[in-house]
């Protein structure tokens, strides 16, 4: 029997596959397709301090082997999420990760603190791709100092392990990773979307109301693999890998590059069953390449772990 289980700080995963934040809502819609207990974990949509209404529409655009989104963190606010969404997920036998966002360090802390009051969330995923209002819109996610600061602050506020979700829109991903590792991150989640844009020819304007959007899907997989491979050689905390996964073969590619577990985002839109289908296929794919557990695959493609 192929062992699919993975133990990460705060998370006992029966398999390494979870839906990515923002691509799965709070699980309700997908629970009508399959039993969420089959998943390795669930990552909830981003929670902010108070309700956010997000950007104007259009919020999504299709690109070659990918898509752009500029949802704008629409969510009912952390209190409402704890009240109505977390209990729904608690009914399933699946670890829950809360993705948290904010415009200031204080907002991040507030959101993190709120999740201390429920037993049904097992880890935080810190989304640092949000612009920092106080610092004039500069992203936490592109400056190692700011990333470390918000990581530390959230860690202080929370009793949960903190996975920091790295933005790929940086010159030096390894420095970002090391900065948040030093600041106490329990793990990394990578990658978030690449910043992109599409022009609408009839209107001669950017198609998305927000102008730019985040590029996701198979198009970005090579960038994700490269960044994970690079980071794996420089940090010692686990990595949840994501970016364009659509198949069990893709999962193995992420594991070999250094991921300990993976998240699947955009592919849910094409096929709502993609996560359980990948989980079911994974043992066979591992077997084909002579690997007998997920743990044994992690980092196998990276020189120092070979």
């Amino acid at each position, binding site marked *: 029997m192929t062992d699919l289980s993975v133990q990460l700080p705060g998370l006992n995963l029966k398999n390494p596959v979870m839906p990515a934040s923002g691509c799965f*809502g709070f699980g309700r819609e997908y629970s009508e397709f399959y039993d969420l207990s089959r998943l390795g974990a669930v990552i909830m949509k981003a929670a902010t301090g108070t309700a956010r209404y997000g950007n104007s529409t259009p919020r999504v655009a299709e690109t070659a082997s990918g898509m752009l989104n500029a949802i704008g963190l629409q969510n009912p606010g952390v209190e409402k999420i704890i009240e109505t969404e977390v209990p729904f997920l608690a009914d399933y036998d699946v670890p829950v990760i809360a993705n948290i966002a904010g415009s200031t360090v204080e907002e991040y802390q507030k959101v993190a603190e709120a999740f201390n009051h429920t037993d049904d969330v097992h880890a935080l995923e810190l989304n640092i791709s949000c612009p920092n209002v106080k610092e004039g819109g500069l992203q936490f996610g592109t400056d190692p100092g700011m990333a470390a600061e918000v990581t530390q602050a959230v860690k202080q506020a929370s009793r949960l392990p903190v996975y920091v979700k790295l933005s790929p829109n940086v010159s030096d991903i390894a420095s970002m990773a090391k900065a948040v590792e030093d600041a106490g991150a329990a793990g990394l989640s990578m990658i978030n979307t690449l910043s992109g844009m599409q022009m609408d020819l009839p209107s001669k304007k950017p198609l998305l109301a927000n102008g730019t959007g985040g590029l996701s899907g198979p198009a970005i997989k090579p960038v994700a693999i490269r960044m994970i491979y690079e980071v794996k050689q420089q940090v010692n905390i686990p990595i949840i890998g994501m970016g364009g996964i659509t198949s069990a073969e893709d999962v193995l590619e992420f594991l070999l590059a250094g991921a300990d577990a993976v998240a699947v985002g955009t592919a849910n*839109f094409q096929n709502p069953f993609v996560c359980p289908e990948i989980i079911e296929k994974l043992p066979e794919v591992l077997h084909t390449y002579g690997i007998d557990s997920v743990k044994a695959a992690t980092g196998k493609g990276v020189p120092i772990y070979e």
Partner: protein
Amino acid sequence: MINKENMYIQSREQIAEDTIEMVLENQWISQKAVPGQFLHISVPGHTLRRPISIADINKDAGTTTILFKITGSGTESLAAYQQGMSFDVLGPSGNGFPLTNEREQTILLIGGGIGVPPLHYLGKTLAEQGKHVIAVLGFQTDRHVFYETEFQEFAETYIVTDDGSYGASGFVTDLLGDIGEFDQYYTCGPLPMLQAVKKQLTDKEGYISLEERMGCGIGACFACVIPEAGTSGYRKICKDGPVFRAEEVAL
């Protein structure tokens, strides 16, 4: 409940300029769907599914009819599908038009271009319920007109074209004064038309079917929202809609 289903193309026909009609076989969809719902169609080579309204259902034959316009790469690929081929859909998706049960009502359908298809199955169903149905259907030119005779089977039907090349000339809203009395309206079409209709018929109970670019199509991603009237919130078109009471949404 939405399923992921394979639909087989029983027939495929071009019925107007760049407009394709397909009759699709599938038991689940044909038995479950109600007027106003849509199919979320997977087009190989495309990341996102394409939402297309249900234009007709034949429960006995187990078929569902869709009509779509070729407007981009996805509908172009879809149009190349031939009889006997199949594609993958999520459906039936969304909420349909409410079907009240009071008889003796007069219902006005106002459709524009590729907004006409969902009104067809709706009107047919309302007529079967014994309602009097009036349809005002707008198209760009005579080359774009479709389903006139199909509507005539159950509705008093008026055609308008932008350039007057067929039927009346102008916009659907130009005709609304001449229609006589009606109890409710149902409309679907381009946003400017919906806005004009809503403005002109504020005193009537009305239902609007909306379009927006979608991600998931099932309510999980928050891509397809429309501002709720009178609040700072949003409704999701794919799950809460695509049909809304006219006063419920801010167009």
